[in-house]
């Protein structure tokens, strides 16, 4: 049977690794290519690059980063950040990305999901959703709202209905990123992750809030996530990829333990 996946997310700004807390206060923390290689050799199951570069000219740099990583990291590589067209997706694929994450541009123009699915295959299109908790309303009954532009612009769209719509349009996977939990190290938002995982038949990746190994355990069991995404936990050396996997395996979660 399938193992649960441990995914490391590298936020890249102008070619450097950055990490944000609640989507603001980003700072440089190193060379993304070296980090990617280190995690790969330590048993990482999948790697996500998120390009948080603001300028369009800076966007070329991510292609170089992806290409350099793809030369030496032989696990699935997923890239997102600013993907707004099939051409963007194709450029990243040619640079070596397996999967393409779409986010804000897909909220503004949902057909982007279908277009990318047609061009590169359903299984390679990942719908990444930034979500914040709100008071449930008639318009957004799930109590969760989609936010775009790096967490700055609430869209008045219910997260549950957007997840279902994304699946219908051809997304092969969902990333559920809780803005409320992001960078807090207090744990994933389990209720949100479970709600979306139960609502779709595509894999769900939990993101935002991991601070200790049992947070991963909780979201992979109670939260019903197929994969757990980590960033600061491993970037600052508090935990290692292999250490996290050993912990999860030790608690009975099926993980890939030989590499």
């Amino acid at each position, binding site marked *: 049977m*399938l193992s649960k996946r441990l995914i490391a997310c590298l936020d890249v700004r102008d070619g450097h690794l950055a990490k944000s807390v609640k989507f603001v206060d980003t700072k440089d923390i190193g060379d993304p290519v070296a980090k990617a290689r280190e995690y790969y050799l330590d048993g990482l199951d999948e790697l996500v690059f998120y390009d948080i570069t603001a300028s369009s000219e800076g966007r070329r740099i991510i292609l170089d980063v992806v290409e350099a990583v793809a030369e030496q990291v032989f696990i699935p590589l997923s890239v997102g950040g600013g993907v707004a067209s099939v051409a963007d997706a194709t450029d990243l694929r040619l640079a070596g990305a*397996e999967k393409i994450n779409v986010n804000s541009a897909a909220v503004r123009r949902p057909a982007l999901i279908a277009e990318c699915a047609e061009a590169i295959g359903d299984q390679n299109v990942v719908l990444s959703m930034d979500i914040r908790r709100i008071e449930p309303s008639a318009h957004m009954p799930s109590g969760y709202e989609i936010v775009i532009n790096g967490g700055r612009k609430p869209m008045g769209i219910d997260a549950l209905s957007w997840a279902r719509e994304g699946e219908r349009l051809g997304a092969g996977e969902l990333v559920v990123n809780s803005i409320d939990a992001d960078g807090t190290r207090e744990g994933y938002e389990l209720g949100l992750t479970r709600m979306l995982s139960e609502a779709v038949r595509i*894999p769900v990746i939990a993101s935002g809030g991991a601070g200790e190994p049992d947070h991963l355990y909780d979201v992979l069991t109670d939260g019903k996530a197929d994969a757990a995404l980590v960033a600061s936990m491993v970037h600052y050396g508090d935990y290692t990829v292999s250490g996290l996997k050993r912990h999860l395996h030790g608690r009975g979660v099926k993980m890939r333990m*030989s590499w």
Partner: protein
Amino acid sequence: MAVIVDYDAGNLKSVERACREVGLSAEISSDPKRIRKAERVIFPGVGAAGSAMRSLAASGVDRALVDAFEASTPILGICLGLQISLEYSEENDTDTLGLLPGEVRRFRLDDPELKVPHMGWNAVRVIRPHPVLDGIEQGDEFYFVHAYRPIPENSADVIAESVYEGPFCSALGRANYVATQFHPEKSGRVGLRLLERFAEWDGRVAVDPAQPSDGDDTASQFDSSRSVVSRSRQRSA
């Protein structure tokens, strides 16, 4: 020099990079002449069976692959490459190359918690020793992305199995042809080791697995496939 067959079926650069990593020089080509003359052939692919077969037929690569197979060139199929080497795929109701007898069907799972496509890391259990699978140990996992599964007609062609609800064929081999449903180029170091062994393989297997075994233990598993396979044969005749 190996040829990586290009037929508009996905991104081949990851396969090329992985070959380079294990010291196998490889070129990406859709030229039937180069495929016929290749020392070894890698036949990858991601996408749908229908458009893949149309593309192969349009370029003449379909015949070149059959010729390379008959000329004993070592061939490695990967994912869709494996699937369209059988005779028929339920995906787009497509007649496929037919290097080996068998068909491809969509996963139909009873457990509502199991998702299709089968995507992620799963264990691969070698059930018939093969030079290219040599060294795979119990618990070694490989990366899969597929919604359809291969069902070779002869159980002797199944060289490895994985489990997703039930067991399914995750690698097959006959004579100079070997193929994996998983992606060795995305499977970390165990995947690279598999490519390395393919790079060294002379295309022979110690015991010829091409001999169909009658009364085999998995016959019931393949019963349902026979009618479809014969239907596809009639149709293509």
